[in-house]
């Protein structure tokens, strides 16, 4: 299930975490929050994103 989590730390730093998206949908889903909240300082894609192109869905099941 697609889900976006926004974690706002007590020191004011914000982390936006997107789960369950494929490819560029992920960036699209969080862009409105990123631009509204401030300046993105770091972007990180979790490993499963890199694996997706080569492994496909059946390969891991």
């Amino acid at each position, binding site marked *: *299930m*697609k*889900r*976006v*989590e*926004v*974690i*706002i*730390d*007590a*020191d*004011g*730093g*914000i*982390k*936006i*975490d*997107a*789960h*369950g*998206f*494929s*490819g560029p949908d*992920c*960036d699209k*889903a*969080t862009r*409105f*929050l*990123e631009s*509204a*909240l*401030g*300046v*993105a*300082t*770091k*972007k*990180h*894609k*979790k490993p*499963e*994103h890199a*694996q*997706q192109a080569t*492994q*496909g*869905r059946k*390969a*891991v*099941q």
Partner: protein
Amino acid sequence: MLQPIERLNEQKENKMSHWTTIKTQIRDAGALTAAARELGLTIIPNALARGWAGATKESAYVIKLPGEFDIAVNRAADGTFALDADFYDGSVAKIAGEGFKRLIQLYGVHKATIEARRKGLSVTRQTMSNGSIKLAIQGAL
């Protein structure tokens, strides 16, 4: 209990996830007002903020504090709102946090909530044990 199972399913389906780190910039007076209100404070447009030794500062917005000093809110050169106050006696930090951290955190919470709801998304808010606030956003993402 739900979350670990969801995570497991995501791995199975090989869906991606990513995270982005943001440095908060205050641009929305409405969200700042909501943040101030949550701290029990009122915000007044075009007013004088009280500072050190009776000095006042003309400000685009003033967040009124119960102590001797207020928070002045003015546009910086880059168009964002900058916060300014005298932290001398600790009264400002006590309510808004050291370096306005509490106020800025709540600004982020309200700004993200406003933007998500504007898109028709649902927002669930949860305060974590380390003081972070987590918003879970779901819907037509």
